[in-house]
């Protein structure tokens, strides 16, 4: 608590210097314009110190405000700008990107010009160019520094992966996501609720987040009420969703032939199918016994639908402002078999209702109260078999497995493939989830000008809770297994002879009555308290914004040891001289209950500085340059990540039993040490440095370049690599890991307005490269095996150098120590020159499968008289995928999996030795199915994420002020390095996936 007293003394000192001021009122007239020189109407203009002295610009951008001598004027406009000017500068106030008011979190709002921070910005306009139901999926390519990666999915499974500035640690890289300053899941709010999203990337601002700041912060700010007016937007958006790029699986006859081929290559003496059976698959004469079913077609249709209904109401006056969003989304999936049971379908469906109300109330002239409440109801519906179970079945069940239904109308069944994919979806009942979310936070802000000019205090409380509940109606089904035998002696090439009495139909299982079950699957609650004392003054040549910030957070999940308590105290100082030189200092003491007693707190100092070069006299003469700023920052951020809770304790628990006695089957149960204590457990610390330049020139060209270097130390790593085995126990950790990460972030854009014609184009590019400096790595026989010195997540595997042509080739090659090899198996490169290929022959291959090193996007927006076109492309590079999806790439193995047409066409055969993939096998084959270059692909892509044509129409009839209609395409185009299937869908799990989709949305917004 030392920091508190220092800060308060500093504040007291400052207050003594500046507490005498003369009072004298006068009227000031001013004009507000945007960067194109057009007047800005409806901007709020008020006295900096007295919020009740307020007025608005008229349609000419003009305002008149009575203020006292020495007071500044604050101007806020609807395009998120906020600027403070002295009364002498009011004749030509320009609002542009430099006056942009950036939400920095912790109640800090800074104009972009003054800020020393490195932030990425996403506005409501950006995310409303998407029609995604999840907010996360509206972020592709948005926000410089944010890497958003798509995951395959159904409505509740496709949360994207997000990273801020790539990866900088071996442990966890999840950024902290905040909604209105409180940690809340990214997708709990919908796009329509969001005003801005700030991606916070460098130390002075991140340090304030204490033990949660190291991985970057995504700060979502919801819409608030507006002054002096009201606006109602009603919108409807309908999406036609089409599945794309479903892999094609081989048909029945091909699969049967492939099984025989695989067995032949495995060296089996008996083949699974005889000629008559192959023929039966071919001619489809006995569908009960020799079926041919395209299961993917049976399970997945290729159409789905979504609807988004939204009403946003914003308005207010001087006393009360409000913003209310009512948003209803629903989705109907592309599952084909949708039997209904008791009125409930087995289709994948979801429905989400979000109701948000944000109120902003002036309780008195000096007291402001804000309350923000979100209630959300979320429902999912699926078949009794969960999607994670039946989706793999659709891919993995070969066409010959079983008929959907037998001739007697029973479900078809099989010995090997026990589950009938269609029956699993249609005949197992349904499951339904209900999730309830309540977010409530309220903020009280007290102006204390009377006590000390520029002093104010703020307190915020938040109480969030969430619970998800599943109910399930389950059923089982009975199925029929049919077998028959051919009379091989009597079979002729053109006719199949069946052995008499060889037809056998056996019924398994039973059609059960539905049973009902229910469970609470997850719940959490959070209590957050926040307090701030702010001293904000503008002096003759300088300005000071000093903040003392207190944070207190409690997050409680289901289960023991799942309560996370954190708190911090921080001082944040922002000091500017002559509106050109700015320095930020941020000093945080942050503690977490996940850290060891005695080491629970970490001190995180950070500084930042910026210099607006273009405001210097020597730059004034350079006409082309409108704005040039150089900024830099350096400091520490923290992370309280631990592998397990209470890691500093040695723990004991149930251990292996022992079987004493002569003939008693009961064992005596044992107790054992489970973990040794990790001593001196410290927070992970990231040292972040950033330098950047922001340039605007030629009245429209904007360039931002950020260079950063960060080094994470104290990373929790196992100490086993160095400790003698004689200790007899594992699992001790040390804060010894070090990872460095560096990168460049570039943003370039140009916009121009010529009469009715407006255009805007730009691009973002980021490149990140990290390196493990230390991870207590165990001894490695060869340098090339070392993970240290390589990026986090670097893939290690074997380098394939072709396929064994024949036995001679095998005999002349080093022995591969994985499984017995046959011709057509993968041949690996011998890296160390010994006589065998074993784990010492692994090398670093490709990049990683989690987070690409290069992430970029570019966009264009053209508008003429309300007609517009908007498009955004997004791509990644230096990214690798693992092609281990069962059936699609790893087919047939163990006689169980299906094979895709792609795999079949590119398999090794004695005739096709120049193939992409090894021979087919019905065995496990550890030689072929390990991490090696055959199964790695360049995952780079470039996608047209959004493309829309819209029309904006302004009118003034029936209370309607404007209409916007649009047709919008999502993911219509993709350029992939590996273009067989969409790797964003099929490389994320090895068991097939709900198809990713493209969609066409049509929608309309009516404003009142």
């Amino acid at each position, binding site marked *: 608590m030392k920091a508190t007293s220092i800060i308060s003394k500093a504040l007291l000192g400052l207050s003594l210097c500046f507490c005498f001021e003369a009072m004298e009122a006068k009227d000031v007239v001013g004009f507000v314009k945007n960067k194109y020189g057009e007047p800005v109407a409806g901007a709020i203009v008020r006295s900096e110190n007295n919020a009740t002295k307020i007025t608005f610009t008229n349609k000419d951008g003009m305002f008149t405000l009575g203020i006292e001598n020495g007071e500044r004027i604050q101007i806020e406009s609807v395009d998120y700008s906020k600027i403070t000017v002295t009364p002498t500068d009011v004749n030509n106030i320009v609002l542009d990107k430099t006056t942009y008011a950036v939400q920095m979190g912790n109640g800090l709002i800074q104009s972009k010009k003054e800020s020393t921070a490195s932030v990425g910005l996403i506005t409501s306009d950006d995310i409303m160019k998407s029609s995604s139901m999840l907010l996360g999926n509206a972020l592709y390519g948005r926000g410089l520094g944010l890497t958003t990666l798509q995951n395959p999915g159904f409505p509740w499974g496709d949360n994207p992966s997000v990273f801020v500035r790539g990866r900088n640690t071996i442990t966890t890289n999840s950024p902290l996501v905040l909604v209105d300053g409180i940690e809340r899941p990214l997708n709990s709010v919908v796009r329509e609720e969001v005003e801005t999203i700030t991606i916070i990337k460098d130390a002075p601002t991140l340090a304030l987040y204490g033990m949660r700041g190291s991985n970057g912060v995504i700060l979502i700010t919801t819409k608030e009420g507006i002054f002096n007016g009201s606006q109602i937007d009603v919108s409807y958006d309908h999406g036609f969703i089409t599945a794309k790029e479903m892999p094609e699986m081989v048909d029945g006859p091909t699969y049967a032939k492939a099984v025989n081929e695989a067995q032949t290559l495995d060296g089996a003496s008996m083949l699974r199918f005889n000629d008559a059976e192959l023929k039966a698959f071919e001619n489809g004469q006995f569908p009960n016994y020799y079926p041919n079913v395209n299961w993917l077609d049976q399970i997945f249709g290729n159409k789905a639908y979504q609807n988004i209904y939204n009403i946003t109401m914003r308005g207010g006056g001087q006393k009360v402002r409000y913003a209310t969003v009512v948003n209803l989304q629903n989705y109907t999936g592309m599952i084909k078999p949708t039997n209904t049971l008791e009125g409930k379908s087995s289709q994948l469906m979801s429905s989400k209702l979000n109701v948000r109300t944000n109120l902003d109330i002036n309780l008195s002239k000096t007291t402001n109260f804000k309350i923000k409440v979100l209630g959300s109801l979320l429902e999912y519906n699926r078949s009794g078999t969960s999607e994670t179970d039946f989706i793999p079945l659709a891919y993995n069940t070969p066409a010959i497995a079983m008929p959907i239904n037998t001739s007697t109308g029973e479900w078809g069944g099989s010995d090997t493939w026990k589950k009938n994919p269609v029956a699993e979806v249609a005949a197992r009942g349904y499951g339904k989830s209900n999730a309830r979310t309540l977010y409530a936070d309220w903020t009280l802000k007290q102006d204390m000008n009377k006590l000390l000019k520029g002093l104010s205090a703020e307190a915020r409380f938040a109480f969030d809770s969430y619970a998800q509940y599943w109910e399930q109606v389950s059923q089982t089904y009975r199925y029929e297994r049919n077998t028959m035998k051919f009379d091989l002696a009597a079979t002729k090439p053109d006719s199949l002879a069946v052995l008499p009495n060889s037809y056998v139909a056996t019924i398994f299982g039973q059609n059960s009555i539905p049973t009902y079950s229910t469970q609470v699957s997850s719940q959490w609650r959070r209590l957050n*308290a926040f307090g701030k004392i702010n001293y904000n003054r503008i002096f003759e040549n300088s300005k000071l914004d000093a903040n003392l910030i207190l944070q207190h957070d409690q997050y409680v999940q289901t289960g023991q040891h799942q309560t996370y308590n954190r*708190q911090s105290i921080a001082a944040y100082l922002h000091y500017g001289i002559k509106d050109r030189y700015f320095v930020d200092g941020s000093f945080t003491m942050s503690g977490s209950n996940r850290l060891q007693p005695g080491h629970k707190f970490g001190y995180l100092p950070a500084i930042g500085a910026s210099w607006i070069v273009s405001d210097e006299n020597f730059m004034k003469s350079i006409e082309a340059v409108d704005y040039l700023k150089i900024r830099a920052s350096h400091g520490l951020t923290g992370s309280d990540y631990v592998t397990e809770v209470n890691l500093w304790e040695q723990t004991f*628990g149930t251990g292996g039993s022992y*079987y*004493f006695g002569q003939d008693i089957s009961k064992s005596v149960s*044992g107790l054992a*040490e489970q973990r*040794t204590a990790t001593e001196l457990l410290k927070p992970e610390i990231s040292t972040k440095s950033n330098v950047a330049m922001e340039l605007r020139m030629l009245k429209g060209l904007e360039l931002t370049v950020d260079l950063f270097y960060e080094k994470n130390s104290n990373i929790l790593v196992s100490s086993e690599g160095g400790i003698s085995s*004689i200790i007899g126990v594992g699992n001790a950790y040390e804060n010894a890991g070090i990872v460095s990460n560096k990168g460049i972030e570039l943003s370039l854009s140009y916009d121009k307005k010529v009469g009715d014609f407006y255009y805007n184009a730009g691009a973002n590019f980021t490149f990140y490269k990290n390196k493990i400096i230390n991870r207590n790595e165990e001894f490695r026989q060869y340098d090339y095996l070392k993970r240290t010195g390589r990026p986090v997540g670097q893939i290690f595997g074997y380098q394939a150098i072709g396929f064994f042509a024949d036995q001679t080739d095998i005999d002349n090659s080093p022995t591969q120590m994985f499984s017995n090899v046959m011709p057509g198996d993968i041949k690996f490169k011998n890296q160390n020159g010994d006589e065998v290929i074993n784990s010492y022959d692994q090398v670093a291959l490709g990049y990683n499968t989690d987070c690409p090193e290069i992430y970029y996007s570019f966009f264009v927006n053209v508008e003429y008289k309300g007609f517009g076109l908007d498009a955004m492309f997004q791509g990644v590079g230096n990214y690798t995928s693992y092609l281990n999806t069962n059936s699609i790439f790893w087919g047939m193995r163990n006689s169980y999996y299906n094979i895709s047409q792609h795999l079949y066409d590119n398999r090794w055969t004695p005739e096709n030795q120049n193939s992409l993939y090894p021979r087919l096998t019905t065995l496990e084959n550890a030689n072929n199915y390990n991490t090696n270059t055959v199964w790695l692909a360049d995952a780079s892509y470039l996608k047209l994420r959004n493309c829309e044509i819209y029309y904006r129409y302004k009118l003034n009839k029936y209370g309607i002020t404007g209409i916007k209609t649009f047709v919008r395409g999502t993911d219509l185009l993709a350029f992939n390095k590996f273009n067989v299937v969409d790797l964003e869908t099929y490389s994320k799990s090895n068991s097939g996936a709900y198809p990713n989709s493209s969609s066409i949305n049509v929608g309309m917004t009516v404003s009142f």
Partner: protein
Amino acid sequence: MKKFNYSIKKIALFFIAAITLASCVDEFTIGDSHLQKPPGVDITIDTVFNNADFAQRFLWNAYSTLFYGMPWEWSTRGRAMNMGNFEAMTDNWQSYLSWDYNNRNIYPGKYGATEESMDSKYHYSLEGSWSGIRKAYLFLENIGRTPGIDDATKKRLKAEAKMIIACHYSDMYRHFGGLPLVRSSYNPYDVPNIDRSTAKETLKFIVDICDDAAKDLPWALSVDERATWDGRFTAAAAKGLKIRMLLFGASPLFNDTEPYYTETASESNTGFYTWYGGKDESMWQDVVDACSEFFAINELDATGGYRLAMDGDDYRLRFRTAYFERGNPEMLISTRVEYSHSYDEAFNYFIGPSAVPVLEYLDLFPKADGTPFDNSVWNDSVIDPYVDPWANRDPRLYETCIVNGMPYQDRTAETWIGGRERGIAMDWSSYFTGAGTYKFGLDKKLASGKPAHWPYLRLAEIYLSFAEALNETGKTEEAFYWIDEVRKRVNLQGLKDSYPNVVWTKERFREEVLNERSREFGRELVRWFDQVRWKRAGDFKKRLHGLRIERMKDANGNIVAGKYKHFKFTLSKRYWQDGDNGENFFSPKWYLSAFPITETYKDYKLPQNPGW
């Protein structure tokens, strides 16, 4: 100022209201008390050792780390050599499990320090010895403060913990030689750099622990304890383990005029980690003394002590009782991992292809009266006049191996090509050499669901060790008694009667003791260490054989019931066996295991074993 006070009050009120609303049950805390550890159950060392029941359960768990010679599950320890076993590295057995460690690494000669993995024959750390030792020390260090256990019981429990340490060291000693001597449990941040000790010091360390533990243990379990507590350590177990270690230590592997491996210079030799630095014949006398002491105490023990299992007239059953039955009168140390074996899982590999008896082993079993089996019958495929070579043999042959025509599963075993056991496969069969494994698995039905254990150490080994040590100290005449007692169990004549023409030199007697150990302890993992401690390079190098058995047909091609043709064939060569033209591939380095390469690079002195 009034206004300000009003604001402050308002803020304070707001805070209180918010706190009251938000937190109804839990206390609202700030500062350090807010950062208390999250609620939940924490079992600490105090929880365990402040409760008599918990503390003892900690020891029972330590028992579960003891070595078990059969695979039982797909875990690091439970799958041993990837379902193989090191019996198949001896000259008695051969593995036909294509993916076990023998076939992948040992037979092709690909073993080395870099190949040490969870599949090795005895991994330095993954086998769990150090873990068992830590558990035992934690128990020794903490049991003192446990309430509710009387001092006598504590002494006994502590002695049991010491035996857990001794057992682990005895296992590691026979695979690695000298070891770091651990004398307490360690904190991971304060692991002392305990260097490797010499072979002699390590031996003394183990023997001392055995002697120390024996003081506080009952010689045998009391009658009323046996049903529930059979399997706990006794003083006889401690003295028995001591004899096993003394015998290993006296053998020429370490106890010789020169190190076993001299091909290249080795720190292991110069540091005396795998060599004593000279030959000390008195070490054999130590074995003799230890055995004499053992039998003296055993004689006088009030419970009746231990004795060879000789009940009943069924000789096979006597022998089966001795190795198979828990709590039989000769079981000194019996370890357990489960109540009974599950035949459809890991255990099936053990009694299946992972070790198949070779012809040389089958020939070791004499005729039923004890006279040697004449293996010249294999010189010709047809035995003329026909005498069933598998009939009337040492009962232990049938109990150890499944041989052609012996009763099996209510019928006779068919190990001929195409028979129900052998099948037609040309390779990879559990009966590839013409015989299979019977021991432990029996005919599957008989043993199914029966309590299982590993006969870690039994009295017969003490008998045969005594015989061996007496012979080495020149008391061969006294030695006959101890070997003949073991033969008597299965109704074999004494050695002298069985081999009337043999002159019993020390060397000849030694051969017969080692053979007797092979016959008595087949699949009990004794032979490997016998081959190693006697540096029996010849046994490593010799090529091994099997039999293809075919049904005999008459001139018309009709099968003649009960008669077979036997084709002797040479098994595929193990790396270390001699080449077809007598080339040498063997190196004495194979006697001991290598330390895992990652371990030798850690921050303590663990010189690699010679040759690796």
